[in-house]
């Protein structure tokens, strides 16, 4: 460990969960609903690894981009602190997701039934990366209501991926979404696998 010191006071270990989804799907709302403080914002200067996301400016081999991320904190006893990060919405920030997804417990993909296609990129990304995720259908007032299985079909989700209804404004509802994700991630990753 880089930070090893002989007489180190007890510090909690941080865990992160990503909250993804299209623009306006309620990411920051959900982060705020379950966090112990209002959503905070941090800026990270990141290096574009040149995955061809922005072909107009591909003249430079390496670029740095400043990306703002909203996040919240939930203190879980003495040993763990959970951080929820809203993923930057724009597709040209995919490379940021790699840094964020690294070491994450999993992701919540928020779906808005008025713009279901907006969460396709997130589903693709986390499937490809092998990050455990659940889909939470944010029930906006006046939005068309679908059966969950219809949404599953539309998103071509495998039957093993949990999909639930939620109200991202409500603490209780957002908490249920997180619990569903943690259980799912534990099923996939905690040993013994598959039990």
């Amino acid at each position, binding site marked *: 460990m880089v930070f090893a010191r002989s007489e180190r006071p007890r510090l909690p*270990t941080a865990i992160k969960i990503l909250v993804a989804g299209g623009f306006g799907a309620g990411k920051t709302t959900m982060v705020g609903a379950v966090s112990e403080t209002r959503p905070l914002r*941090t800026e990270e*200067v990141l290096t574009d690894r040149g995955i061809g996301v922005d072909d107009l400016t591909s003249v430079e081999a390496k670029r740095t981009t400043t990306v703002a991320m909203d996040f919240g904190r939930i203190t*879980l006893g003495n040993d763990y602190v959970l951080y929820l990060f809203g993923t930057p919405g724009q597709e040209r920030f995919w490379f940021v997701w790699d840094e*964020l997804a690294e070491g994450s417990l999993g992701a919540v993909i928020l779906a808005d039934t008025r713009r279901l296609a907006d969460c396709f990129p997130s589903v693709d990304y986390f499937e490809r990366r092998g990050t455990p995720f659940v889909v939470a259908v944010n029930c906006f007032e006046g939005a068309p209501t679908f059966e969950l299985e219809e949404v599953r079909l539309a998103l071509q989700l495998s039957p093993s991926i949990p999909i639930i209804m939620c109200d991202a404004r409500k603490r209780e509802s957002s908490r249920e979404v997180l619990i569903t994700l943690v259980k799912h991630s534990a099923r996939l990753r905690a040993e013994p696998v598959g039990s």
Partner: protein
Amino acid sequence: MRGGTDGPTDEHWVDPEIIRPYVVTRGRTQPAHGRFDLISMALAVGPPPGPDAGLDPEHLRILQLCREPKSVAEIAAYLDLPAGTIRVLLGDLFDRELVSAQEPQSEVDMHDMKMYRAVLDGLRSL
């Protein structure tokens, strides 16, 4: 030398928002030691440093914030500075043994059933 009356002057070209983080770290972009993740946790340790410790106001603000464990991301948000700047300043404090730090749960530790149980218990008791 400033630009003459004919040419464009460049004195207003740099956004102060860019200058501030640079000045705070005296141009350094990497911490002296270690690599602080966005969610590495920091805690102030030891007696508070005196005025002759040669610390900048930003260092002192970090120490104040970190009386309770805080992540790099939180410190950055509260001080309104980029996370990269906070990493450098935390590195200074870590070198002087004024903070201790804890790296986050890594991808390889994601098989730890104890961690999942603790997180579920914590979420259920919210």
